[in-house]
């Protein structure tokens, strides 16, 4: 297929492949972090956590009907949100435990770094398709990002559990999304991966 052999198609496939590896590594690290977090925080691993404001849900209906642009934009919005949430978790962790649990703090920081890197990778993919990269809401505020609600210690722990669970699912979803994006396009202008319509 001519479209599959074009330089931009090859670059897209390359970016998608690297993104899949990034997401796969991130997923594995989040899984380990989740186990450590549950143990350190004394939580029940089977506890159900209600959806919380500000935590992007990975669950999606009609996933197979999404366009490539939708996939990239939703992924980018999610990982930007996780970047802020993980940064707050890290801050709360340091406030609560200081140096008492440096291991958990280091693991959180490592995942935060991966989330930031993945968000940047998604921006690269959007740039490749000459799509405008949406500005982050926090940057548009003159006074900085709005403060997240102050929660009790227990609520913080539960929210942390919810954040990590959703992040794990997002990492899995991102692998699947990027595989869809990496599929060769049948013809220019009708790319199922990145067309605006399904």
């Amino acid at each position, binding site marked *: 297929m001519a479209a599959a052999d074009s330089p931009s198609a090859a670059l897209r496939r390359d970016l998608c492949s690297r993104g899949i590896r990034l997401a*796969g590594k991130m*997923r594995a690290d989040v899984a380990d972090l989740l186990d450590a977090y549950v143990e350190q925080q004394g939580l029940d691993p089977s506890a*159900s*956590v209600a959806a919380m404001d500000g935590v992007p*849900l*990975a*669950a*999606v*209906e009609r*996933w*197979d009907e999404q366009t490539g642009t939708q996939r990239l934009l939703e992924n980018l919005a999610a990982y930007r949100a996780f970047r802020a949430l993980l940064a707050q978790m890290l801050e709360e962790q340091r406030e609560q435990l200081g140096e008492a649990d440096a291991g958990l703090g280091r693991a959180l920081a490592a995942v935060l770094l991966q989330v930031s890197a993945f968000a940047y990778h998604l921006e690269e993919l959007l740039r490749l398709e000459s799509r405008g990269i949406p500005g982050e809401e926090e940057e548009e505020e003159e006074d900085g990002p709005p403060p997240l609600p102050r929660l009790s210690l227990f609520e913080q722990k539960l929210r942390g559990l*919810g954040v990590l*669970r*959703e992040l794990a*699912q*997002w990492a*899995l*979803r991102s*692998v*699947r999304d990027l*595989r*869809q994006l990496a*599929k060769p396009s049948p013809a220019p202008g009708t790319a199922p991966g990145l067309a605006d319509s399904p």
Partner: protein
Amino acid sequence: DSHVQYERVGADVTMKCGSMDWDAAVTWTANGTDIDESHLNGSYLILKNVDLSQSGQYSCYEGSSWHLKYQTYLRVGTPPKEPVLMCRSNNYPKGFYCSWHLPTPTYIPNSFNISVIHGTKDMVCEKDAIPKNRCHIRYLQLFSTVKYKVTLTVTNPLGKNFTTLTFDEFAIVKPDPPESVVAKPVPNNPRRLEVSWQNPSSWPDPESFPLKFFLRYRPLILDQWQHVELSDGTSHTITDAYAGKEYIIQVAAKDNDIGTWSDWSVAVHATPWTEEPKHLTTEAQIAETTSASTSSFMAPPTTKICDKGAVVGSGAMAVCWTAGLVMAAYSVLFI
């Protein structure tokens, strides 16, 4: 007046003859055979500690007229034990199915009701025509962290029971085994076997949801399996097979990212390529090719039938001898 009556195994059963008085003269039959009066208390039929063999049609007749006064079908059985429920997705991301059975039979009709809840949402599990103890659900959402809760209730006239399964969307993903597994020898390679297979036909989108595979193989004469995990492709060449030994080979599949391994595929057998055995030249054929003259005897050139290093089939003895020895013996005879 005919109806069905369900009783537990071991119960004591009393049957009244319809509206007949206790002291009326009646005859009871079981499946057409008269019941001995020792089982009667007046016109009541008493069955103590009933067992399964006592299921059947019981009829009560008025003594003199033989009018049928009452008839019932007695079904002896048990209330249901906790059912066994299993849910699995072999066609991810389309949906999943649940199937169930009772650990022990009840010997009477049972009805099953299944409910599926995802978060706060009730979902409909559509029952399959065949088999009857199965239903399937389409995933409305993917990548959800909310668990599914499936409750199966079994009810029969003697009681009810239920069981509940709670699981994540990704935890129940288990593909069907790979299909069309083929193993072939590789020409001129006595230690190789080429194995190929196909994705299970029930897996709807292997391109977007690729499978990885696990291959196991062993010679029939050994118990220990060799294992190879393959992250892509649907073929593999075994390169360390024992020459000439028949192998048994199986493959399993798993989604690349979630769930559990499938059952093993149907086993295939194959033997690596072996060289064709060379023909052995017989003593008679050697004698025919040499000169038969006694006056001008010339010793024939020495002919080795085989080299030491040659292998002539497996199990065959390699025989090396020099034709000159034989001819020398003949020469002695004619001198």
